């Protein structure tokens, strides 16, 4: 057992740390989403030029071939320094790995480089209005027409669809096959008349994600990834990638939030002292620190296990569940500490910390829904980790 970094890992961390310190572009602009995306595109170009885009990708595809521990170090360090996200998060974390794992040589040559540079943004067309957790029930249809497919249907919760060139689209190509077998994974060009996007306004007032409507949209046969009818297996790869890449960045992000929460507690008057001296708040804050530490240590245990076995196990679901719980608790506690002032939000001169916690509170409501709901994660844990019988 050794919870320290090896000398070469420390060297890697120091390299990441100092590069980020020297090249950090500062906070994201407090403006509309267009400005934020332009800022993130610049940042991604900078990352790519220095070899930090797609660090998990093999070197032959333009990545860095970083080990899992190096990926963890990079994610933790970038988040610790509050580096902006790259513009093409979904392309880097999911699209690229899928093309690398399942794509043809032509697809690799065509798609990978623009993902890394951020020149082409990717989005994910999985969920539909009637297919959420039960993804395999999706209804968007693709019908063969010569060497093209004609796609009709609707996707939803499609993050950054309004900026995307490519959509990782899962559509039904065989309605007679069992639901998991009739699906195909396509790379759909979003820049065509048959594709319309409409932003969905979230409870925060922002519009990160969209509804996407396909009306006889066209996708060439050459854009099928992993073979017709194999869409479910390909889609599962992307979901596994999503989970494996997130844990360490998420932990650093919560550690940053905890630092801000402690500061808030120290600065907020309560009962003639500060909230940091209030026994109830102290207990709650301590418990959050303990939970985050267990999450960090679980992630280390998971990483050790994955390095030994080569594949992430279903235990990864525990971390995502825990992250959602902690992040929600943390923002709820911040509002409790603010007390009556917690009713003032961004834009009010008297809002505490510029209304940042009100935003975080609202945004974190989605944490137990996005990327696999907590209820579904509990099913996965019950069935795949504990071996309990399936209800279905």
């Amino acid at each position: 057992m050794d919870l320290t970094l090896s000398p070469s890992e420390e060297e890697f961390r120091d390299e990441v740390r100092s590069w980020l310190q020297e090249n950090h572009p500062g906070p994201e602009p407090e403006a509309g989403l267009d400005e934020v995306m332009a800022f993130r595109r610049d940042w991604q170009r900078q990352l790519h030029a220095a070899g930090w885009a797609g660090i998990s990708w093999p070197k032959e595809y333009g990545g860095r071939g970083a080990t899992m521990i190096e990926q963890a170090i990079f994610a933790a360090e970038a988040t610790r320094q509050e580096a902006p996200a790259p513009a093409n998060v979904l392309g880097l974390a999911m699209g690229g790995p899928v093309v690398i794992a399942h794509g043809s040589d032509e697809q690799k040559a065509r798609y990978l480089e623009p993902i890394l540079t951020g020149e082409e943004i990717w989005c994910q067309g999985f969920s539909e209005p009637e297919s959420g957790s039960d993804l395999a029930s999706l209804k968007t249809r693709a019908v063969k027409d010569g060497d093209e497919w004609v796609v009709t249907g609707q996707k939803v919760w499609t993050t950054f669809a309004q900026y995307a060139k490519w959509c990782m689209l899962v559509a039904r190509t065989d309605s007679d096959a069992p639901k998991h077998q009739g699906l195909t994974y396509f790379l759909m060009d979003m820049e065509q008349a048959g594709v319309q996007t409409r932003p969905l306004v979230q409870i925060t007032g922002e519009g990160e994600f969209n509804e996407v409507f396909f009306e006889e949209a066209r996708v060439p046969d050459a854009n099928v990834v992993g073979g017709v009818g194999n869409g479910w297996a390909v889609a599962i790869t992307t979901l596994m990638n999503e989970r494996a890449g997130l844990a360490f960045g998420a932990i650093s992000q919560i550690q940053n939030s905890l630092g801000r929460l402690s500061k808030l507690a120290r600065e907020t008057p309560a009962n003639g002292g500060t909230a940091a001296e209030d026994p109830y708040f102290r207990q709650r804050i301590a418990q959050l620190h303990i939970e985050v530490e267990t999450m960090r240590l679980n992630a280390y245990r998971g990483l050790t296990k994955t390095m030994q076995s080569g594949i992430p196990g279903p235990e990864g679901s525990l971390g995502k569940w825990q992250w959602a719980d902690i992040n929600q608790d943390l923002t709820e506690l911040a509002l409790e500490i603010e007390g009556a002032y917690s009713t003032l939000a961004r834009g009010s001169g008297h809002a505490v910390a510029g209304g940042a916690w009100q935003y975080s509170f609202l945004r974190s409501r989605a944490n137990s829904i996005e990327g696999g709901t907590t209820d579904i994660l509990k099913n996965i844990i019950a069935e795949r980790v504990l071996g309990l019988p399936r209800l279905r």
Partner: protein
Amino acid sequence: MYFDLTDEQQAIKSTAHDFLGARFKSERLREIAAGESGFDESGWKEMAELGWAGLALPEEWGGQGLGIVDLAVLFEEMGHVCAPSPLLSNTIAGLAIAAAGSDEQKERWLRPLAEGELRGTPALFDAGHPVEIGKFAMTAESDGDAVVLNGEKTLVMDAASAGFFLVATADGHRHIVESGAGGVTVIPEESIDPTRRLSSVRFEGVRPEATLPGAGEDYIPVFLRACVALAAESTGLAQRALEMSVAYAKDRQQFGRPIGAYQAVSHRCAQMLLETENSRSAVYGAAWAADAEPESLPLAAAMAKAYASDAGWRVPDAAIQVHGGIGFTWEHDLHFFLKRGRANAASLGDAKWHRERVADAVLAGETAPASS
């Protein structure tokens, strides 16, 4: 970065798992729990032969010289069977003499303790006084050069089978009093956990055999290591309660299906797994700190004991709900796990006490442990 047991630690785990599983089957656990002393002489001898009495005590004084990770591995397995054994109290007494005793005292008391021939137990808390970690009411009265002890200690573990007591006094010292010494009376108490007996011990004009030279803060590392061992034991309790629940939920049929197919049951089991795994991670993180990064131990041990204090009884508590009526019967073993978990939660500082230590550290600005 490698967060898993080494091959040697894995070997300790499987030896302990097999031995304890065979030794403390339900019938035997019940016999010991119902017995007069609560002590299992033959089981102790076998544990001593395996070197467990001195597992984490120095080789120089007859111990195995292993680390706190190894000790945590052992205690997790002890918890897995809710072992009725004085190993915990004996280990704490051994760590205390190793930390604060003179060489002569170690030769006389620590060596036989580490070899399993003589058992010791701490006698810390004063009857009728509130329990505060590190604060003791009994005074070490002096009679010329000699020390005299008067008063009553309580919540003393395994007193009936111990060879000596380590008696704490207000000046922060520990005094060695043999259990057969004149003026010592052991009064067994009814404890919530019948598999770990608690007693009061009355001292009337007792002259201790020895006073350890170390005092006060010298015992902090002993306390922190004891917290890790106890938290490991609670993790083992939770693990076993989870295993029993999952097995039952697969087997028990209602409405034509195994109850584990219903999300009210399966999600409860998932929650139990989460708490058990969190507890285990916190315990091994702290155990590793004890061995490799002692400056991180105070915070890590507080986190581990706080978390395991809760998980160690809540998981068995949830297990009783999964089992329904049968889980509430004396006949089912679950109640032993709930009772031990509840007793562990309140021993060596409860969750609230340890969270307060965490709050002290994190609100002062020391946040994440050094190793990330």
